[in-house]
C-alpha cells in the first residue's frame, strides 16, 4: 500500500475484511499517521485552539488489529511491475499485490516559492502555516475560486481578514456546477464580504522577502500579506515514469481499478478509471472517491478472481460560511437546471440538472436530508420525469411557500 492517506487506509481495512491474511505494508510520504484532509481548510483554520489532526484510523488498530507494517516519511521512488518490486526511498520491497494511492500535489504559480506568505493547502503543515499566518494577516488573496480556495476564504473571513478571490475564468465553478449555478454560489461570497474577481489572471507577486501585493494581468494591484493558491492539483505519477504502466491523467486503471500492470491497483486522487455510471473515463478529487476507490481497490486486490467494477454517482460537499454545499451526479453538459426547493437568493435551495431524459445531478445548499434522497434517485438512474414527480410531491408536502418549483433554463 503506497500512499498514507484516506485511500490507503480504506484499502487496508477492505483487504482485511475481505479475508486477506498476508503481510500488509503501508508506506506514506508524510511524517504523520493517516489523517483527514477536509478539516484542514475549515475548523483547522478557524478554531480558537489549534486542533489535533483527525486520524483516519486508530494507530493501535492499524498496527495490532489490522497487522500493518507502517512506514512513515517514506516516499515511493520506483516500480518494477515485471519484478513485482516497489522502491520505498532507496529500499526495494517485493509485493504480490500493490495499491498505489500517492495522491496529488497542488499546482503553484511562478514566483510562489521565492516569497514568504504565498502558500498552497494540502498537508497538515500547510494548514498549520496558514492558520498561524491568519493570526497576523489582515489581507488575504486567494488565487482560484474552486472549493478549497473558497473554504479558505470563508475561514479567513471568519477570522476577520479581508479577502479577495481571483479567478482566471469568467465565472467560478463552471466545470463542477455549470455557469449559472457557479454565479449563484458566488453570491455567497458577496453576502459574506468576500470580494470575487473573475476573468483575470495573476501576473506576478510583488514583495521583497515577503509578499506585499498581487499584480493582475489587467494591471490591477491588490495588496496582500497572505496568498493562498488553490488552482488545482496534479496527480503524483512522476515516480512511475519508466515503470511502463499506463499513465494519462493520473494512473490509468480499468473498471476494477487495476492498472495496466497485473496485480497493481490505484485509488484516489492519483487514479483515473472508466466510471460505468458516466460511460467515461474520469479522475475525481473528491473525498468519497478516495474512500470508495480505496475500499474497492483493497477488496479487488485481496480477491482478484472476484474483482468487481467500481461504479459511483460522484458526490462531494463543501462548507462555506457555515453553510453546506453538496453536489451529487454530473452537472457538466446538462440540458436544463431547475430549482425544486428553496430560493436561489437565499440560504437554502436545491436544484436538479437534466441530461436528455434523465436526472443527471442535484446541487443543494443546506438541504442535507433531501440530498440523501436525490443521491438515491441518482444511483437508480432515475428519469427526469420521475425525479420531478418526487420533487413536486415533496414541495406539496412541505409547508414552505418558497418551495414551489420554478424553471430556470
Amino acid at each position, binding site marked *: 500500500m503506497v500512499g498514507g492517506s484516506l485511500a490507503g487506509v480504506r484499502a487496508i481495512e477492505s483487504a482485511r475484511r475481505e479475508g486477506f491474511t498476508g503481510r500488509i505494508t503501508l508506506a506514506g510520504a508524510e511524517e504523520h499517521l493517516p489523517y483527514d484532509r477536509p478539516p484542514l481548510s475549515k475548523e483547522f483554520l478557524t478554531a480558537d485552539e489549534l486542533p489535533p489532526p483527525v486520524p483516519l484510523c486508530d494507530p493501535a488498530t492499524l498496527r495490532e488489529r489490522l497487522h500493518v507494517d507502517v512506514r512513515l516519511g517514506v516516499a515511493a521512488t520506483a516500480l518494477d511491475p515485471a519484478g513485482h518490486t516497489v522502491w520505498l526511498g532507496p529500499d526495494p520491497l517485493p509485493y504480490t499485490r500493490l495499491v498505489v494511492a500517492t495522491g496529488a500535489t497542488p499546482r503553484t504559480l511562478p514566483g510562489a516559492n521565492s516569497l514568504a506568505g504565498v502558500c498552497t493547502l494540502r498537508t497538515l503543515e500547510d494548514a498549520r502555516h496558514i492558520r498561524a499566518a491568519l493570526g497576523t494577516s489582515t489581507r488575504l488573496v486567494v488565487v482560484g475560486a474552486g472549493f478549497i480556495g473558497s473554504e479558505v476564504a470563508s475561514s479567513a473571513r471568519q477570522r476577520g481578514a479581508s479577502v479577495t478571490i481571483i479567478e482566471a475564468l469568467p465565472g467560478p465553478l463552471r466545470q463542477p456546477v455549470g455557469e449559472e449555478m457557479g454565479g449563484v454560489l458566488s453570491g455567497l461570497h458577496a453576502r459574506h464580504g468576500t470580494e470575487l474577481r473573475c476573468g483575470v489572471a495573476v501576473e506576478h507577486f510583488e514583495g521583497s522577502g515577503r509578499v506585499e501585493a498581487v499584480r493582475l494581468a489587467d494591471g490591477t494591484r491588490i495588496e496582500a500579506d497572505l496568498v493562498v493558491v488553490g488552482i488545482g492539483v496534479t496527480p503524483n505519477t512522476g515516480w512511475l515514469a519508466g515503470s511502463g504502466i499506463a499513465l494519462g491523467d493520473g494512473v490509468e486503471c480499468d473498471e476494477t481499478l487495476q492498472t495496466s500492470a497485473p496485480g497493481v491497483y490505484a485509488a484516489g486522487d492519483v487514479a483515473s478509471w472508466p466510471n460505468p455510471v458516466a460511460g467515461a473515463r474520469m479522475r475525481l478529487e473528491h473525498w*468519497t472517491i478516495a*474512500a*470508495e476507490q480505496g475500499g474497492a481497490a483493497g477488496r479487488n486486490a485481496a480477491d482478484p478472481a472476484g474483482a468487481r467494477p467500481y461504479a459511483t454517482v460522484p458526490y462531494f460537499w463543501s462548507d462555506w460560511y457555515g453553510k453546506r454545499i453538496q453536489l451529487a451526479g454530473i452537472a457538466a453538459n446538462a440540458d436544463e437546471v431547475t430549482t425544486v426547493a428553496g430560493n436561489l437568493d437565499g440560504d437554502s435551495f436545491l436544484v436538479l440538472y437534466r441530461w436528455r431524459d434523465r436526472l443527471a445531478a442535484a446541487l443543494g445548499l443546506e438541504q*442535507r436530508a433531501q440530498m*440523501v434522497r436525490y*443521491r438515491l434517485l441518482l444511483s437508480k438512474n432515475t428519469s427526469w420525469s420521475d425525479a420531478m414527480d418526487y420533487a413536486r410531491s415533496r414541495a406539496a408536502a412541505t409547508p414552505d411557500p418558497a418551495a414551489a418549483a420554478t424553471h430556470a433554463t
Partner: protein
Amino acid sequence: MRINVDTARCSGHGVCQLAAPEVFEVGDDSVVHLLTDHPGDELRSAVEDAVAECPEQALRLEG
C-alpha cells in the same frame, strides 16, 4: 447489535442511509436518526459498511 451515534460529529452526509436505509435516516434537523434500536443480524454487513464509511466517523457499533 447496538449503534451509537455521536450527534456532535454527525453532519448529515447520509452515507449511512445509503448503505443501510432500513436503519439510518437523515432528518430535517440534518442529523441522522436510527429507525430501529436493534437491527436484525441480516443487516449487520450493511451497518458495518455504514459505520466504516461515515465521513465524520460519527458511528460506532456495540455488540
